[in-house]
């Protein structure tokens, strides 16, 4: 048996699936050789982007760059290799009273992936993107040289790599700030909204909350469009906690985490089951408003509780469609989007609405711009391309854009917002697709 590194690779949406060379190593010298020996290289973290962003002719997986380098427990500054997952960071930081400033909806992403996509969380309106808290990182560039990038040193590289989708090189290590917490719990309020107007009003009212997000039932039609549950939260102080949690406020009990054992057959997910799911989800909450405490896992990562849940979409996979529409016309745009989806009958299990705050002009490759963002899961089937096209049309009309880290089929005019990333070495399938469709 001679090693051949060609393998089937796919990201979280299981679409597309490619057979390409993928290698991993923890030696910087070997990584340099890999870059030197290949024409088209792209980094891959934990493959949690949904589409084709971290796929390429020659994929370098950072899985083995999984070591911590330092943790300043006094000031909450951590440095680690780029393949370290956010879950690994939380494992050591939470018991010490530190949390990530910005976290996406899954903790199973790598630090490198978080920087390359400049991920956002439920607190974008208040605390911005991941990059706001990045102090510096080491980037391996085209000639294999390792350069340190920060706001002061190689600042041009620093900002182009942030949100740069791996097109500027391989991030090897990163140093970033953590936020103080007194407990591993969140004081949470969930409020039911009957329609879009109400949910938009609730978002505006909740501006002083650090975390806000809404789950939308996107099969509703007419006056019920936008029926949703808004969740808002704050890190709980120790003294706020109920007595039973107050003693060890930074320790969570280990929970059972089920795994989806196989790919669900295609027929399981159809309009009916999606409707049922949404019905159950929204009726689970009877009362108009619930206030309680929940642990950070449940609040930030409800989907992580079921490992490999992406398999329920079956072998043909799914896409996540996430767009942002600027604030001025956002509500109207959202309404049109939701109407189009309801009309198509192509339901989405997961529909998450958020309000983005201001765009950091320095982080010019970051996806978020001030406005409304909606993320929807759609199973891949023969009708999907048409729906995506219709949605793209609306997003374009309203001057919005698509999140690259989730894209695999949107029109290129919505995903070509990156600047200063041109490289003949670092090339992803996504980037080629976008350039070719221009």
């Amino acid at each position, binding site marked *: *048996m*001679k*090693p*051949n*590194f060609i393998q089937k690779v796919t990201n979280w949406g299981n679409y597309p699936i490619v057979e390409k060379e993928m*290698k*991993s*190593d*923890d*030696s910087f010298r070997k990584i340099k050789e890999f870059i030197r020996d290949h024409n088209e290289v792209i980094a891959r973290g934990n493959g949690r982007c949904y589409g084709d962003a971290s796929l390429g002719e020659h994929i370098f997986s950072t899985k*083995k760059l999984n*070591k*911590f*380098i*330092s*943790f300043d427990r006094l000031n909450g500054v951590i440095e680690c*290799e780029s393949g370290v997952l956010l879950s690994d960071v939380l494992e*050591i930081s939470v018991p010490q009273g530190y949390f990530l400033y910005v976290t996406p909806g899954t903790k199973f992403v790598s630090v490198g992936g978080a920087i390359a996509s400049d991920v956002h969380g439920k607190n974008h309106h208040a605390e911005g993107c991941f990059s706001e808290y990045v102090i510096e990182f080491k980037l391996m560039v085209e000639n294999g040289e390792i350069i340190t990038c920060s706001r002061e040193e190689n600042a041009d590289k620093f900002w182009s790599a942030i949100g740069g989708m791996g097109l500027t090189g391989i991030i090897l290590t990163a140093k970033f700030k953590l936020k103080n917490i007194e407990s591993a719990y969140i004081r949470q309020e969930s409020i039911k909204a009957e329609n879009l107007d109400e949910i938009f009003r609730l978002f505006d009212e909740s501006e002083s909350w650090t975390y806000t997000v809404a789950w939308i039932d996107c099969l509703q039609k007419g006056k019920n469009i936008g029926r949703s549950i808004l969740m808002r939260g704050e890190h709980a102080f120790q003294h706020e906690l109920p007595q039973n949690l107050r003693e060890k406020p930074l320790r969570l009990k280990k929970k059972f985490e089920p795994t989806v054992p196989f790919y669900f057959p295609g027929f399981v997910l159809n309009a009916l089951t999606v409707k049922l799911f949404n019905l159950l989800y929204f009726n689970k909450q009877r009362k108009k408003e619930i206030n309680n405490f929940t642990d950070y896992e449940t609040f930030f990562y409800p989907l992580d509780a079921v490992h490999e849940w992406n398999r329920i979409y079956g072998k043909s996979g799914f896409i996540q469609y996430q767009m942002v529409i600027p604030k001025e016309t956002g509500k109207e745009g959202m309404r049109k989007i939701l109407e189009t989806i309801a009309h198509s009958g192509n339901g989405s299990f997961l529909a998450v609405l958020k309000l983005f705050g201001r765009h950091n002009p320095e982080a010019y490759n970051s996806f978020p711009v001030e406005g409304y963002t909606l993320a929807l899961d759609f199973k891949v089937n023969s009708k999907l391309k048409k729906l995506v096209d219709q949605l793209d049309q609306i997003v374009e009309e309203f001057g919005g854009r698509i999140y690259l880290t989730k894209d695999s089929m949107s029109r290129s005019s919505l995903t070509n917002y990156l600047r200063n990333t041109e490289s003949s070495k670092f090339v992803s399938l996504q980037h080629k697709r976008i350039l070719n469709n221009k």
Partner: protein
Amino acid sequence: MIVLGSTSEVAQAFVEEALNKGEKFEKIYLLTSNRETTERFARHIDVKFLQQAEVIELDLMKEIDYTRFEKISSGLLFCATGYLGEGTEEGLYDNKNTERIIDINYSKLVPVMNYFAHKFESRRSGTIIGLSSVAGDRGRQSNFIYGSAKAAFTAYLSGLRNYLFDKKVHVMTVKPGFMATKMTEGLPLNPKLTATPKQAAASIFAAYKKQKNVAYVLPIWGIIMMIIRNIPEFIFKKLKL
């Protein structure tokens, strides 16, 4: 804890598993021929577990300076040293390749193991864990140079276990089947038969706690190797394994 072959992912995962399970070590001695990556691991466990570790150079292919090991004292030795080499036809007839496989997996390794075994014997306590291989259970055409060295190593561990038994030192032989590590990266392995370093470490740690003598990492390998060992030679020699 003393680790031989500290860049091995299984060894590193084992160290993490033990620390995660609350084992305490005065110090972890990481013996390695690759200082750079091992230093990184030492820093990592210091950051993650506040566990002190020291990197000590050991290159089996060079003259060994035993004075470096004098100060080492511990009740647990984990040996993950191994070299797969080229199991191909060119590999077979390349003497350098053959020698290197035999040296790293057996002939140069055993004296080092003996050095530490002696220390354990004088303490009259402790555990030695050696990673051998299922490849040593029966020679197969695809990797029998490696397999033969591992067979010798298995026999060595078994003898050592016997010898140290009444000296209160326990020796455990581990036979991992396929593992998804640097050594096997790029090989088309059946995922059902392949353990990740993390799984392997958890299983080895559990076996260590139970004071097992011989442990397969995935139980299925015990069965597979029993079958393979029992295929009559006149059939076996015709198989393409």
